[in-house]
């Protein structure tokens, strides 16, 4: 069934929208850029920041395009003097009411407020910069919060309540004292927060950042590789960021779609220290007699020992006196090869893995 189409004009261009679409959605579909800050797809449109304002003919004032549904014959302008002037005012107010110091900010280069300042060509705010002076929340090893950089867009609140539905974060206080956080103004570590890190992923500025990635590499210095998480059976798609061969941080990515639509959990996002942990096994170890200690040997020595021993056991006890455990942790290719080895090389079907545990 075809949905009703709504004709309207944006910046002089005749376009058609689906009934119920917002001006912003329609503009984006038609390649017309409207800046946003608090907007985050698949969460409620709240119109909190007003950065997306546009002119609508015969409207009393500028309207927030993220919240305003289209109507037939609507005439919209996104780039007038009034629109730009309002956007500048909004951005300057946000800038001046926080501690937006790009010199030391982890989001430098990936900050949506910084992008807006640059795009709107603002040299400096016309208001005095007066950060609220909150203490930095630094008492856990995963997430750092600096509410002096918070622009109160509410994305973290919506990510927590509408995407992960953990229902930990909300706004508290009012007016210029308004802030985001867990109930009773608790720190994350003392709240019911489960450290999924969705808030961190959606934060447009440097208010919520990766603690372990601090000073470990700036956004443009990192390389990004997509892979599948190694923890549970969901198979979340994730981006792993590295610098000089070192893993710096992990993030979800909505562009990858299924199965996780950009979300991760605490293990996927913060549980990957093990990969480059010093305890990793680095050399083959062997003991030729049960009462000896394990000693480092070459690959050749280790595999020769195993091959000889397996051949001898097969000869005396038959192939079925040998068994193997494949692994729910390894790849399909490796499991395939393992069972092929047991069946075609050893000659037994004694192969299983811990599916039952």
């Amino acid at each position, binding site marked *: 069934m075809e949905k009703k189409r709504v004709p309207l004009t944006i910046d002089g261009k005749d376009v058609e929208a689906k009934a119920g679409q917002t001006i912003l959605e329609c503009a984006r579909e038609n390649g017309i850029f409207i800046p946003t800050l608090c907007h985050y797809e698949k969460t409620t449109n709240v119109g909190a920041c007003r950065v997306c304002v546009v002119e609508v003919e015969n409207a009393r004032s500028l309207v927030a395009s993220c919240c305003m549904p289209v109507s037939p014959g609507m005439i919209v302008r996104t780039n007038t003097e009034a629109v730009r002037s309002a956007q500048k005012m909004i951005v300057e107010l946000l800038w001046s009411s926080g501690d937006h110091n790009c010199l030391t900010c982890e989001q430098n280069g990936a900050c949506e407020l910084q992008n807006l300042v640059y795009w709107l060509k603002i040299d400096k705010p016309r208001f005095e910069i007066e950060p609220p002076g909150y203490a930095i929340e630094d008492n856990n090893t995963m997430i750092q919060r600096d509410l002096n950089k918070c622009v109160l867009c509410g994305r973290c609140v919506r990510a927590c309540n509408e995407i992960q539905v953990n229902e930990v974060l909300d706004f508290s206080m009012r007016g210029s004292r308004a802030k985001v956080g867990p109930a009773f103004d608790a720190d994350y570590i003392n709240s019911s927060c489960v450290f999924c890190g969705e808030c961190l992923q959606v934060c447009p500025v440097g208010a919520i950042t990766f603690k372990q990635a601090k000073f470990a590499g700036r956004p443009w210095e990192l390389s990004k590789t997509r892979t599948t998480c190694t923890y549970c059976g969901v198979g979340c798609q994730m981006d792993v960021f590295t610098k000089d061969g070192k893993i710096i941080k992990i993030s979800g990515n909505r562009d990858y779609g299924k199965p996780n639509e950009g979300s991760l959990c605490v293990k996927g996002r913060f549980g990957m220290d093990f990969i480059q942990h010093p305890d990793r096994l680095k050399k083959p170890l062997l003991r030729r007699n049960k009462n000896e200690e394990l000693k480092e040997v070459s690959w050749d020595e280790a595999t020769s020992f195993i091959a000889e021993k397996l051949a001898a056991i097969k000869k005396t006890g038959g192939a079925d006196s040998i068994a193997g455990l494949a692994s729910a942790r390894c790849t*399909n290719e490796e499991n395939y090869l393992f069972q092929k080895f047991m069946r075609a090389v050893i000659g037994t079907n004694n192969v299983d893995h811990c599916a039952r545990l």
Partner: protein
Amino acid sequence: MTNSIEELEYTDLILATGTNTTENHPVISSFVKRGVRQQGVKLIVIDPREIDLVKYADIWLCQKPGTDVAVFNGLMNVIISEDLYAKDYVAERTENFDALKETVAKYTPEYVEKISGVPAENLKKAARMYAQANRASIIYAMGITQHITGTDNVKSIANLSMLCGNIGIEGGGVNPLRGQNNVQGACDMGGLPNVYPAYQQVATEDARKKFEAAWGSKLSAKPGLTLMEMMAAAGKGDVKALYIMGENPLLSDPDLKHVEKELRNLDLLVVQDIFPTETTQLADVVLPAASFAEKEGTFTNTERRVQRVRKIVDAPGEAKTDWEIISALSAKMGYPMQYASAKEIFDEVIKVTPSYAGMTYERLEKEGLQWPCPTSDHPGTKFLHKDRFSRGLGLFHAIEYIPPAEWPDKEYPLFLSTGRVLYHYHTGTMTTRAEGPSERCPESLVEINPLDAEKLGISDGQMVKLTSRRGSVQAKAQITQKSVPGTIFMNFHFAEAAVNLLTNPALDPVGKIPELKVCAVKLEAA
């Protein structure tokens, strides 16, 4: 899963049983929670613990551990006696309904209440809610399978789902949530004693001939031993060599004291892993393997989606990928395996695995594909059993309730159940080495209800001693409503307080899965 993760958000009802989803599959739980909060999805939780999902549920049935079959039979009893079942579906797509009807007839809500402790009225309410939903999905995990009646439990779930016409439709289905990243793939690839890749039986001649031709080797027709049987055979001396790739049975298996004895009895124990573990300590040869971040390949997730794994960093020291190690070993044994890359192995896999036949690394590049995907133009399969079951008609199994192998008594008065917590994974070799998760959960805790704690004079954080017929462990008590009176819970992540010293190795006769979710213990201050 018969169906897909994304369907959970937009179905009409979800029945979650034996799955602590918010901790074990947090991202799947967000689909469930979004469905409940934003799409009006109804949620029934059947679980012996007050897990987080209970907070989101319309109704919670708290059954005694191990009484699942009775509860499911009770639900079906109500649905049949109130004439709420899907008559057309049952008539057209299933068989053996009369036997089911006859068996569940005696499981009246009152009788089930006596067995399970679930109030009859709640059982009726849940039954009506499930039956009246247009589309209902059942999600479950190890809380259903790790019982001596694990197979019966799963069959009962399938009975319930078929009874209401929920298999073979979008938003419905019987959906096991797999706990390990590639447990689905390891099964698909034939990492099981009775089947080759894609579940082709080793005992059937056609399948065997096919693989003999593909691999150029004579193959055994005799199904092999399961993990628990291998361990027993090692103890008896029938199995003399064991090659373990990436597993740590000396922490994950039940009745650890016994497992250690069995492993010590081997002539040759080879363990291939990324870290030293409890099991590598007993090994004759330890082979250093590459982690998932150091190799190319594919994993298959719980909804049958095959997805790419990509190399991000180099493996440490001389560690090698598991496939390189197997190839090298195979060459030493006179069977050269010549693969230049994981992709070349995958190209061989798709030739012998019909359900993967239409997949290639190129097709998997952007988005994973769900099997069955038999041809190169097949889009993959979102949900199974549309129009027809694999065997034709869906078969109802008439199943009687059997109590767990161990039931609390005077000496061991409490139920013990085991599982994972949010912050850790399996035997903890990875997560206990991660700073953040370890900060949130640094040690094993014995989760106990305030009433039980008061009765035993135990306070929060106090060291307690937990004893079963097989052993005892000590850990701190955590007083929490999550445990209901009479049942305590402990995770199995930590070697220092290995709960599997206590657990019962009694097996399901078909699935050979041990009853890790129920045993009887006593608790005292340490």
